[in-house]
């Protein structure tokens, strides 16, 4: 009996050793492959037993909890919309802030002039004529011929005024003419509107030194516009040997389609040349 018990222990040890050796030799898979029906059976049983729990769990997570998710999703979407709107408003405020800051800088730089701030109200009813209407008029100090500028340069002059509005003839209008001077060479000419987004500098002799990139500013002659206000930059120079005057095209400093805040310039004609 004692001998039989010892043999059993030896057999168990040998079997365990074989199993350990086989495991270490990587034979476990081949050995266990025969047990796959067992595992399959276990799997099926497990599925059957746990099915009610799983169904209940699925109901909870995919439906009951989803109700909350939907609500949460709706809330998040709403928040996203609000944030988007706020972002948009912030962008608007940022650009307005930049514009107002530029206007303020301009005002402090040109302390010699009495600047009258105004905003764009309406544009010309025709696309050919370049006038705009601003929200300041006679009561705010505007008068016919008041020069209008923006922080970037010359915009135009007032051609009609009412108590609360003024009509501005933009320098791009075909009827506009501004006495100007090329800053680098002090060559004088007249800037005329073309009805398009460019200007022409006229009455400059072909013999004069004019180069692309030169800055054109108001000359102050005629006393209508203050001296030294930027008009634009020369973008094209065409010389014709048969003509006395050179053809000069200017890109205006102010993008007329984008003006919002402007200043009327209250100045005395003596301030000009």
């Amino acid at each position, binding site marked *: 009996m004692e001998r039989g018990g010892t043999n059993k222990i030896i057999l168990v040890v040998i079997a365990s050793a074989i199993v350990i050796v086989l495991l270490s030799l990587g034979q476990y898979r081949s050995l266990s492959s025969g047990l796959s029906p067992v595992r399959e059976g276990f799997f099926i049983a497990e599925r059957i037993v746990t099915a009610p729990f799983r169904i209940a769990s699925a109901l909870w997570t995919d439906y009951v909890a989803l109700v909350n998710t939907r609500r949460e999703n709706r809330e998040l979407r709403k928040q996203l919309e609000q944030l988007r709107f706020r972002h948009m408003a912030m962008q608007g405020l940022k650009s307005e802030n930049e514009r107002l800051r530029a206007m303020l800088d301009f005002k402090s730089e040109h302390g010699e002039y009495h600047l009258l701030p105004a905003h764009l*109200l*309406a*544009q*010309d*009813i*025709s*696309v*050919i*004529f*370049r*006038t705009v*209407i601003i929200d300041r008029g006679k009561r705010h100090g505007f008068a016919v011929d008041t020069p209008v500028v923006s922080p970037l340069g010359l915009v135009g002059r007032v*051609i009609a005024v009412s108590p609360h509005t003024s*009509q501005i*003839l933009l320098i791009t*209008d*075909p*009827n506009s003419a501004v006495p100007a001077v090329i800053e680098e060479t002090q060559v004088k000419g007249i800037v005329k509107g*073309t*009805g*398009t*987004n460019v200007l022409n500098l006229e009455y400059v002799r072909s013999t004069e030194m004019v180069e692309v990139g030169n800055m054109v500013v108001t000359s102050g002659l005629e006393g209508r516009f203050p001296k030294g206000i930027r008009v634009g930059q020369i973008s094209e120079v065409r010389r014709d040997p048969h003509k006395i005057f050179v053809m000069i095209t200017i890109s205006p400093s102010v993008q007329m*389609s*984008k003006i919002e805040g402007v200043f009327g310039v209250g100045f005395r004609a003596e301030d000009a040349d």
Partner: protein
Amino acid sequence: MLKTQISLLGIIFLAAFIQTVLVPGLWSPLRVDLLLGMVIGVIVHLGFSQGILFVLAASLLLQAFSGARPGLLPLFYLFAFVGIDILKDIIYLENVMTQVMLAAAFSAMASFSLVVFLDISLVPMETIPLVLGSVLTGCFSPLMVSLVGRVKRAYET
């Protein structure tokens, strides 16, 4: 008659707001002429004597929103009014397509004659808003014609 004229002039103020604030707000170089549609409308619904009064008053009002030389807008709209009035004996003005074509044609004619008259050299890109504006003017004209008809029916039935 007076109520009709006043109402139509009220509409002109609204049209001016659309033309000078809303449309340029969408795209700065774009303009849509709503008065041309109303000119056709008054010819269709009001007749010559009432129509000419309205056209004169409306175009003078619109002059306030333009840098055009005084008298240029009334001249153009009077020309359009008389021209369309003559055409009404030849073409069927009540037809929507006719209204669209007429308004678009007159708008394009006005823009391009101004371009030629003022010697403006447009680059091809700058003609796009002019053409689009003429097309939109044509498209909006039946709406303005029916608006005039509604005003007339409201006061003169």
